[in-house]
């Protein structure tokens, strides 16, 4: 009991220390992982951008010029032999103001000792496709794909609920995830009723085609209620080919990811158009090529509006990114985007430079 109290107080002290002095947190937290303190790490994303379609007003969250895109403060620790807890605070600009707000982006506990299952409870990024589960600092490009931004908003589908993920007994890696949540997504599921439950399922499959090449195929779907308590649903699929040779693997890699997302939102249906439902879908496909130990060259193509719904004009975006990573803990990325909208005369151009830094506990990299 005393120990638990002590641990809680240590947790709070280190948290405060972490917010106000990142340098201190680094010295305090042993990277040995031998202390009882949680692993603490912080990421920050500094951004400069200039775009024809981007606001010059500083109170708009994505504006031209310099900005602190986001800072993330993460604490993770095993609670006991049975649970692991993770807390991630995101610090970002509040819309309509130049002030910054701090929000719990993810706060959850998950099981450590259940055979074949991981059960998770709390607030977390839902398992809808691949990109939705990434934190901002791990995005392959400076921004999320258009279809994710349009359907799910800036924070993605990140809800309070419960998740169960099971390893399916197949010869290849196969994982089935089912999640229930109370919808609170700003753009898609906004039902204010606490009795309204949303669901997500995700089926992830991965094959080693050779020692160097893996193929991942995923299928996901979701259902919930909109702000007006109308039924809405999403489904998505993703396919990733990843190549990293076992000889010379420090210097070369190639990743090709394609993600498709399709949302149907009954609330926006209009009687005049004759459309029973309003639907938006899009595809994003990107290639990441590591051509030297510290260098990545990446290209992305996106198309929005595959369903021929003429109420919404289709959009295309092409992006090119050059990334330079002095170490595992720092990076600089330069990105150019060209956005063209059907029936719109002028194309939008954007150029952006982003600095990514991580300090604190060594990150465990996801594949």
């Amino acid at each position, binding site marked *: 009991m005393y120990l638990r109290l002590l641990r809680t107080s240590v947790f709070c002290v280190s948290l405060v220390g972490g917010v106000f002095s990142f340098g201190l947190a*680094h*010295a305090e937290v*042993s*990277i*040995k*992982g*031998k202390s009882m303190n949680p692993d603490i790490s912080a990421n920050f994303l500094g951004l400069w951008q200039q775009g024809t379609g981007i606001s010059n007003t500083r109170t708009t969250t994505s504006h031209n010029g310099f900005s602190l895109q986001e800072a993330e403060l993460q604490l993770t620790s095993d609670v006991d*032999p049975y649970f*692991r807890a993770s807390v991630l605070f995101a610090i970002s600009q509040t819309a309509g103001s130049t002030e910054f707000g701090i929000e719990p982006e993810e706060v959850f506990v998950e099981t*450590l*000792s*259940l*055979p*074949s*299952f*991981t059960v998770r409870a709390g607030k977390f990024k839902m398992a809808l496709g691949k990109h939705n589960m990434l934190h901002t600092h791990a995005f392959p490009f400076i921004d999320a794909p258009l279809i994710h931004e349009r359907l799910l908003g800036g924070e993605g589908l990140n809800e309070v609920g419960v998740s169960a993920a099971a*390893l399916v007994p197949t010869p*290849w*890696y196969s*994982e089935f995830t089912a999640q229930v949540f109370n919808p609170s997504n700003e753009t898609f599921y906004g039902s204010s009723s606490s009795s309204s439950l949303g669901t997500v399922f995700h089926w*992830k499959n*991965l*094959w*080693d085609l050779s*020692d160097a090449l*893996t193929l*991942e195929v995923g299928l996901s779907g979701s259902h919930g209620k909109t702000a007006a308590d109308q039924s809405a649903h999403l489904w998505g699929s993703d396919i990733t080919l990843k190549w*990293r040779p*076992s*000889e*010379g*693997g*420090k*210097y070369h890699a190639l990743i090709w990811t394609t993600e498709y997302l399709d949302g149907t939102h009954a609330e926006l249906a209009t009687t005049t158009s004759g459309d029973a439902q309003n639907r938006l879908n899009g595809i994003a496909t990107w290639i990441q090529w590591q051509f030297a*130990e*510290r260098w990545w060259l990446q290209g992305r193509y996106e198309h929005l509006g595959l369903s021929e719904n003429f109420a919404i004009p289709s959009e295309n975006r092409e992006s090119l990114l050059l990334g330079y990573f*002095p*170490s*595992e*803990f720092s990076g600089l990325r330069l990105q150019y985007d060209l956005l063209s909208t059907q029936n719109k005369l002028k194309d939008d151009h954007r150029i952006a430079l982003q600095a990514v830094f991580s*300090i604190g506990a*060594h*990150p*465990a*990299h*996801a*594949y």
Partner: protein
Amino acid sequence: MKRNSLVLLAFFGCMSLAHARLQVVATLPDFAALTTEIGGEWVDVKSIAKGTQDPHFIEAKPSFMRVVHDADLVIANGLELEVGWLPSILRGARNPKVMEGNPGFLDLGASIQALDIPRGSVSRADGDVHASGNPHYNLDPIRMGDCAQRIADRLGQLDASHSQFYLDKAVAFRKRMIEKTKAWTARIKASGVHQVVTYHKSFTYFFNRFGITSPAMLEPKPGIPPTSTHILEVIRILRDQKVPLILVENYFDPTVTERIRQDLPSVRSKTVAIQVGGDPEIKTYDDLIEKLVQAVESASGRGRS
């Protein structure tokens, strides 16, 4: 109390495994080779990393989670070497048997006498330092003899019916390493090579065992790739101290030594495997150390004698 429950766990472990071969997953190929020798026909051994890969940066592929899911025992190097990938694999495997703290998880680094333990606080300004000490003890045949013992103990705990078999094999390996180390030490002494430059601090234990010192590294700081100013500094050290040999671990880019070979043609530069399987000819742990001793011998007669 804790011991009792451990024994109990081991007991039930054996009951269920009485007729099956133990499924062992080692993080690195050297421990896989050791376990194969000790376990013989009673174990199935797989390695996560390949001999050609940098063990600091293995990707946590889901297929490894699948393999660890079915494992009875996971053997890790420890000392933070696998910190970037093993936790993800263990969590994804969803196999309580092999979680840290259970008999199915063996951290060999926890019981070895580590070298290069940083004094005071560590900072990433010094590169990717290993705060618990240098983790590359796999190149010391004597410490690997101790590891063999621990592997045998743990295999015996999980599979009591063959514990004597495992113990005998470990004792034989250890004895052989002690004998061979005497011969290897004599050969290195006879070669007259006292100083060797390497890319990363992968050879600390090997050099410590065989009486070699290392006056410089090709990487300016652990995990930071060489810069041209640093290479010039290395050239100065090589020249001033008449260092005869550079060894480049085979997962690093060997072209960095081109400039050095241009300036100092008398210095021998060799790319070497530092793990079993790092080169198709290296099939056993004995082959690995033998090859490295030969690499040192190849610089005999060069530099300062």
